[in-house]
């Protein structure tokens, strides 16, 4: 499975690691819903680190679509909320 961290690149993540990443993802989501900045930034760091650790960097010259996309490491809770709005991150 290819996971893209926006502004960073793609990682090949084995299916076996998805369980753990799912847990981190759920924590991140509840932090976004609760509007808890501190919990959000630590959950995001943990999730991105998790992807970087279990995943292997997908070659930059291999042009494949990502299966999953994660916000950039420096994203704020507001940016992620905006991203999740109906309009998405990019208007139009």
């Amino acid at each position, binding site marked *: 499975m290819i996971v893209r961290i926006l502004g960073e690149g793609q990682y090949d993540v084995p299916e076996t690691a998805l369980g753990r990443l799912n847990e981190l993802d759920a924590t991140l*989501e509840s932090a976004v819903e609760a509007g808890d900045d501190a919990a959000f930034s630590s959950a995001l760091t943990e999730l991105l680190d998790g992807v970087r650790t279990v995943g292997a960097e997908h070659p930059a010259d291999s042009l494949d679509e990502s299966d999953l996309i*994660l916000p950039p490491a420096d994203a704020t809770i507001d940016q992620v909320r905006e991203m999740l709005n109906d309009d998405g991150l990019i208007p139009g």
Partner: protein
Amino acid sequence: MSLMSRISLIFRSKANKALDRAEDPRETLDYSYQRQLDLLSKVRRGVADVATSRKRVELQVAQLEQQGAKLQDQAEKAIAMNREDLAREALTRKSGLNGQISDLKAQHAQLQGEEEKLTLAQQRLQAKVEAFRTRKETIKATYTAAEAQTRINEAMSGIGEEMGDVGMAIQRAEDKTSEMQARAGAIDELIASGALDDASSLNRGDDITRELESMSSQAEVEQELARLRGDSLPAAQQPEAIEAAPQGDILAEQPQPATETKDGQP
């Protein structure tokens, strides 16, 4: 994968230019290159800062050395004037300056070493950034080529469909042509058989003209008959001629005007 899935879904559902931009590896590469350039410019600024500090230290050392030379001069003058106390004071101050100078020189050497290391790092980074730029451009070109290939394939399939339409049009045109040819053939046959007038022949389709022509041809037939009768049955016409003609050569005096047709032909 709730959050990740949601974000992915949002990006994927926006199948437009904006999505392509977000997911375009070329953009990612450009972004990385920009980050590297930023880093390089930071290193350059660092090198410039260190060089500035080194120059400042050099200036301070030069000033202190100048001051030290001045104190040395003053000490010598004081000795010449038998003012040993003043000379001692001057030399004491000079000694203090020497301590500062030696500290500054140590700092200068340290700064110089740092500057050299940073310059080297800057050169290496610059080479790496340059190499990345080349690689990035190659990857981008490959991507663009792949994208173009996809577009070409799409266009080709589109052309295929259009070609189908063209094929249909050609078929229709061919059908129409053979239909017209068949019709022309049938018309030719009809004209040949007399069932249909040849429209290309002028003044032949007109009833009045036909009547006039028919009359004219009947008159010609009558005249020809009359002439022939005159040739083969001269006796029938001779009494009138004999009566009218004076005595002499009857044959030579054959009255031509009597057999002359109305249009002057014999």
